[in-house]
């Protein structure tokens, strides 16, 4: 992950942290892989049990330690493995997304998407789109912890 932090060089590449729910989005990523679809290597996937597991502090910590964009992916509403996890996270993350925008982050920096385990194509598409958007925006310096920038 540290290579992506090196943003002073001409070939800057964004670092995107994607929290994927174990039951849908992570499996969707698997399907994208087994179907030989490609998506940018800028996306680092972190598997979580459910999108309801997302503590907004995870997102902020990612920004502190070098992420240029954060994407949370979960099952479509109604399909949650735990019945209501994504219904809960829809409310929480909606409020949180608006709060980080209010703090001065560009809306593209933090996104939430619903991707099911059969949507390998959507997984690849969303990851590509997110990477392109962040590439256009440039590196994120907001909330970056200076002590972590030097650890390259």
């Amino acid at each position, binding site marked *: 992950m540290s290579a992506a932090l090196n943003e002073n060089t001409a070939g800057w590449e964004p670092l995107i942290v994607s929290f994927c729910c174990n039951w849908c989005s992570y499996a969707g990523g698997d399907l994208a892989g087994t179907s030989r679809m490609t998506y940018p290597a800028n996306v680092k996937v972190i598997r979580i049990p459910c999108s309801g597991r997302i503590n*907004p502090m995870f997102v902020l910590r990612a920004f502190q330690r070098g992420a240029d964009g954060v994407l949370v992916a979960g099952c479509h509403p109604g399909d949650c493995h735990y019945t209501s996890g994504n*219904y809960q996270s829809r*409310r929480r993350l909606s*409020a949180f997304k*608006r709060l980080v925008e*209010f703090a*001065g982050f560009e809306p593209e920096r933090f996104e939430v998407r619903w991707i099911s385990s059969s949507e390998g194509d959507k997984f690849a598409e969303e990851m590509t789109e997110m990477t392109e958007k962040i590439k256009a925006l440039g590196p994120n310096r907001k909330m970056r912890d200076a002590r972590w920038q030097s650890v390259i």
Partner: protein
Amino acid sequence: MAERNLDNIKIIREAVKQDLLGGRISQVLGWEKGHYWWQSRPLFARSEADLEKLTWDSFCGINLSRYLLEELKDHEKVGVLVKGCDARAFNRLLQDNMVKREQVILYGLPCPGMLDYNRLFEEAGAVPSGIAENNGTVILKTGGGDREVKREDVMLDKCRECVYPDPAAYDQMLLSPQGERKAAGRFKPVEELEAMPADERFAYWDKELSRCLRCYACRQACPFCSCRECFVEQESPRWQGRAYQPSENFMFHLVRAYHGTGRCIDCGECERSCPVNIPLQELNRKLIKDINELYGDYEAGLDAEAEPPLLTYRPDDPAAFSEK
């Protein structure tokens, strides 16, 4: 006003005296005068002598309900004087299961709005020797004579925008209710910030939050910050270090405000207690505004039975992100 206020204090003292001396409660939380005339600090009254110190004036801004968290450890049953915001704070603690209703007697005090001593000093140009109040005006006593100002203009920020000055929960209402105030523009500063470009908004918060000492006074004063272990003190994972670090200031303030989503009662104690005047209410109100817009109007603390918006959901909820 001065005489009427003395009558009010008498009424309050009489009411709590009966319960305290009769043994129904072992302590009363109220206010007493501090070192200066512009300070009223919490009073923990356990005897008749203590009750002599009990006061009720225009400087009782401190929210007393929050003190219950500590006091109920040592007392079976406690009486609390509650203004509008104190009562909503009590409902908040009740909903968090931090207090038991039967352990507390609430004495309701409709609140005319509390005064901000900084504004009084500013208006007087120096520290006045005292004030008198008369029907919506405040008379500042200075060396160069008396100066009259409108009460509205010298109230605490948190009181200017207050809509519910009357306690929403009480066992006994001690004074006559104020009635609902007209909602002033409490979301106006939030809307102004929302209209800014993202970078400008970031610069604004960067400047405001860079002053934060992380003394956590806002958390200590807050009725929704009732966790026994706060994330800022967690060792593993360690969210907050001890060194000055701007990104950790952001972390603290965003997460503090976020933990109040659908729970913040908008009492403004965080902002009032902040030693470096960070506009914390703007963060809290942003969340109140968004939750109201997205998931329907909800005023935390008004009704202890109403379900907080983040503890529930509807299958057809809207989202602040694309759901395609």
